[in-house]
């Protein structure tokens, strides 16, 4: 069985588009497109909202409300939205299906980004916030120069878990007549072609892993080492040998 899945994935014919079938490459690109768009929109909504709620302490009910969204049955919402939205679009475009799909994915991504951003800001040491204000930072400076950078580890973990969820759930786009890696899963199931079905699942998992790895790398280079505790193993120079020069100071 594993061998058959492997064969299916390795067959170059499956990767290219043909007159009758859309290949893996195209579906993969479509899948990435759905997910990237949903995650971007969710980030644009949830990040500033979480920062502001955390900073001001006002509107905390929104966090609780967003978390209840997690309980919604995804497929049910998708079907409902499609029934409402799709009839407004005619002709050969996918828009009528695309909009409900993206809405479902965005709603799925928002809670973890929002609540983690909020938690990140709220968990900033009150002494740090006090010092920031006390030295004369404006509210906006406190938020952008202190609270945001200090929240990054939690924001990243929220965004990464949203990414995993969205990539996995985006397969439901194929429940509607849309592309994406879900196509292979649904088609494989319908045709009793299990290698294809499992191959589709493997591709989704691989995509999720790759995306998570990329985000991990971004995180590694954006989050301050002072927060992660990853300090260079390089031994600090002996103080008696090191006289720090002006040039070195400027280079730090």
């Amino acid at each position: 069985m594993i061998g058959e899945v492997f064969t299916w994935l390795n067959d170059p014919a499956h990767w290219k588009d043909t007159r009758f079938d859309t290949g893996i490459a195209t579906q993969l690109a479509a899948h990435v497109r759905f997910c990237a768009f949903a995650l971007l929109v969710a980030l644009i909504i949830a990040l500033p909202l979480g920062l502001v709620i955390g900073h001001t302490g006002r509107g905390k009910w929104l966090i609780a409300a967003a978390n209840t969204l997690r309980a919604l049955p995804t497929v049910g919402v998708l079907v409902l939205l499609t029934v409402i939205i799709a009839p407004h679009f005619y002709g050969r475009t996918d828009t009528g299906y695309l909009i409900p799909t993206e809405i479902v994915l965005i709603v799925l991504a928002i809670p973890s980004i929002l609540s983690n951003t909020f938690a990140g800001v709220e968990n900033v040491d009150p002494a740090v916030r006090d010092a920031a204000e006390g030295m004369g930072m404006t509210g906006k400076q406190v938020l952008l120069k202190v609270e945001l950078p200090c929240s990054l580890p939690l924001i990243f973990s929220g965004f990464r878990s949203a990414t995993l969820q969205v990539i996995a759930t985006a397969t439901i786009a194929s429940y509607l007549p849309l592309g994406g890696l879900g196509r292979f899963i649904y088609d494989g199931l319908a045709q009793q072609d299990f290698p294809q079905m499992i191959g589709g699942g493997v591709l989704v998992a691989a995509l999720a892993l790759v995306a998570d790895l990329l985000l991990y790398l971004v995180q590694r280079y954006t989050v301050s080492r002072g927060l992660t505790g990853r300090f260079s193993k390089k031994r600090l120079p002996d103080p008696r040998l090191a006289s720090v020069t002006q040039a070195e100071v400027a280079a730090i």
Partner: protein
Amino acid sequence: MIRFESVSKRYPDGTVAVDELDFVAPSGQITVLVGPSGCGKTTSLRMINRMIEPTAGRILIDDQDVTKVDAAQLRRGIGYVIQHAGLFPHRTIIDNVASVPYLLGTDKKQARARAMELIERVGLDPRFAKRYPSQLSGGQQQRVGVARALAADPPVMLMDEPFSAVDPVVRDQLQDEFLRLQSDLGKTIVFVTHDIDEAIKLGDQVAVLRVGGHLAQLATPAELLSRPVDEFVAGFVGRDRGYRALTFATVGELAVHDEQTVTMGAPVPSRADLDNWILVVDAANVPQGWLNLAELRPDHTTVTAEMLYRGGTLATQGGSLREALDACLSSPSGRGVVVDSDGTLLGSITAAEVLGLIEKRRPGAAAVTGSGSERR
């Protein structure tokens, strides 16, 4: 100069944290606010940089009402140090210190050069500059907090229990360094603590607050110890007041006796002039400890370090009577060792002689309540 004019603070829940507070913190001096927990020290301090707004009265810095200045602008001109330092965990030490200059738009290179200077000035190793706060001990972080507050060279500094979260030894060091720094910089400092010993050590003047935010007494440390205005202040100032007040009492010159000495590494003398105790000094005539001839073993022929009693404290010529008395009380021979300002031996003095000096001061009580310049 910071002037409180009938300043009150009533929190929305009805708590009166500060009640009609009136006092002046003179320029270039350390004014310590001290009092039991919840007496409104922090509230008073934070009203100066408008972290808290008073509900009545005014606070003036150099005759400028603080509420007439933009809060952020005001704070950039006031150094602020808090209990746990509150360093930015995501910034290196040097960037933490340069925070206010960055806010003021100082060129990055210049701000860092200045920060580097301050890091050394507060007694930190320059190699800490590239570290992060989590890599520093509490005492080191507190030093960075002080350096950060000094970075923009503000004339006024507010300090809220800056040394209370570190162990007593480090606290003592930090206090000494802080006094040294202040003697160079001459900032106008308001310093909050709940530790009366710290208040007495650091303050040019000390304001004792009682719960409810009332000023109980504003006085120099010496005055506070010798003439507490009421039971509350007396109780708060605590036991050993008389002894501690000697910290602020000096006599011109201590008349010392010559003391028989032996140098480290030299042969052990066969007998001593006075009793069995002989003072051991090093080659530079700096006292090292006492030798007890009665306790020597036959194999003890030359003076070595492990034979010494090192318990005695030293009195400095020109220092306080407290130091002199303590040197006598702590000395195993009963003779207090007096040294020069460079640490070399001058001679010894007995407790009876120090008590005589204390007795002599008695009628002229003015010496006890002298000005702050008499101490340290």
